[in-house]
């Protein structure tokens, strides 16, 4: 039996196509995935992301614990509310999960938000490494989460919040969060647009969803969420990276805090080894110049030779072309082909992101 978020009945009422995702029944779309995608790029859309799992980590050793468990360094979080994106690695440098960690209090209170399908695994991983650390690890299944994204998202959300909360939400800098009365509002997202991700008590979720709907924010499903994040060049766990492919080969080197050198985070030794290896594969963006649609797991060719694999692919509504993320052999140059249904189709190698803040960032 799949899990249901507190907004399940709202999705059904709005005519959503519900699909299984990470153990949950989630909306794929509410009619047109492309219209939902465009709404986020041009106006404002909202996503029920209550399937994602908040985990609070507190205690005297919370910072030391997370500096051991995460490849990025939570010591960079100097101000309360600041967020950091990080991978949590296994010993071989593969990714257990990718997550966002927030600093919640000066005394070392942290909140992680991890993926739905990996939440149980993540919790066991955290628990199995807590020996010697004085920390409390608390899974927050009592919280729902709504992401409001798009150029109008912040303004419209503010009209739906109590005055005091609205003011502090509008003052948030990028990648910062504020808390008030059990609500946690972060200026973060997974679409390449401005906006908020709001964690709130599960029994408040329907009320917020309803006022956002009345304010003209369009409900959007996981389909649009995937094309938006692909255009924004953001990785999807389990697809672009996973237990067997780490951050160095999935475009996430920027999330590894190599300094200070003495910080021994899990996976570091394996990363150090791969870092200098000539075999290290590159993670690139592809823009299909021929006709068709690139899909995950298709083969990348260069001069007829197999040189890599598509990790995420699809049709970009903003570019009106097919785009992809791919892991390829180093030194390919500017073009390649993708084997689509048995035929090589030409593509250009580009640097993601493809789209940010409604603007196309690559040469068409």
């Amino acid at each position, binding site marked *: 039996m799949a899990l249901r978020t507190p907004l399940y009945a709202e999705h059904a009422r709005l005519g959503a196509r519900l699909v299984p995702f990470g153990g949950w029944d989630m909306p794929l779309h509410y009619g*047109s995935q*492309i219209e939902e995608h465009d709404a986020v790029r041009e106006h404002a859309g909202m996503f029920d992301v209550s399937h994602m799992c908040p985990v609070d980590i507190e205690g005297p050793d919370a910072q030391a614990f997370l500096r051991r468990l995460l490849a990025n360094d939570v010591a960079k979080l100097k101000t309360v509310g600041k967020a950091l994106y990080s991978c949590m690695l296994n010993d071989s440098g593969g990714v257990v999960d990718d997550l966002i960690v927030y600093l919640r209090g000066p005394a070392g209170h942290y909140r992680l938000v991890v993926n739905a399908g990996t939440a149980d695994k993540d919790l066991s991983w955290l628990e199995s490494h807590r020996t010697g650390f004085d920390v409390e690890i608390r899974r927050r299944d009592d919280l729902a989460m709504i992401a409001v994204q798009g150029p109008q998202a912040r303004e419209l959300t503010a009209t739906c919040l109590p005055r005091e909360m609205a003011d502090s939400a509008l003052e948030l800098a990028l990648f910062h969060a504020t808390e008030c009365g059990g609500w946690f509002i972060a200026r973060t997202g997974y679409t390449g647009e401005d906006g908020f991700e709001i964690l709130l008590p599960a029994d408040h979720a329907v009320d917020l969803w309803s006022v956002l709907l009345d304010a003209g924010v369009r409900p959007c499903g996981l389909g649009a969420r995937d094309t938006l994040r692909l255009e924004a060049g953001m990785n999807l766990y389990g697809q672009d990276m996973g237990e067997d492919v780490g951050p160095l080969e999935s475009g996430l080197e920027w999330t590894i805090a190599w300094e200070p050198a003495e910080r021994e985070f899990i996976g570091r030794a394996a990363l150090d080894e791969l870092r200098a290896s000539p075999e290290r594969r590159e993670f690139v963006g592809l823009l299909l110049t021929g006709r068709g649609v690139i899909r995950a797991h298709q083969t990348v060719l260069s001069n007829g030779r197999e040189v890599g694999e598509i990790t995420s692919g699809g049709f970009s509504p903003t570019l009106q072309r097919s785009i992809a993320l791919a892991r390829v052999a180093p030194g390919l140059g500017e073009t390649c082909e993708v084997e689509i249904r048995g035929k090589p189709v030409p593509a250009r190698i580009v640097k993601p992101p493809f789209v940010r803040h409604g603007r196309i960032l690559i040469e068409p």
Partner: protein
Amino acid sequence: MSNLPADLKYTKTHEWVRDNGDGTVTVGITDHAQDALGDIVFVEAPESGRTVAAEDACAVVESVKAASDIYSPIAGEIVEGNAALADTPDAINTSPYGDGWIFRLTPADMGALDGLLDAAAYEQVVADES
């Protein structure tokens, strides 16, 4: 329930067939099929002159979700692929039985149409799938 014109023939693989009365038939995918696929973003229609057998994969429809083969309901020769779908693939979503047609075919044997499903039988196929 999705739209199912009574004057068309259908296949288990969700194509519809219209007898044009001039020795040709037109083929597309059903309203149910387009709804299940989601927004259509790319269509590879067959080239004219190609000879196809019944159940040959002869066109490709790609939605935001996945690629799907379109099968020729009966044997014959392709008269024309719908070239307009190159620029407006979403016509399959908005008008699956009209502007969203995919190809025209001259059947090797018009009698083969009788072997296809009528609207009621196709409706049962859809009901059994869900």
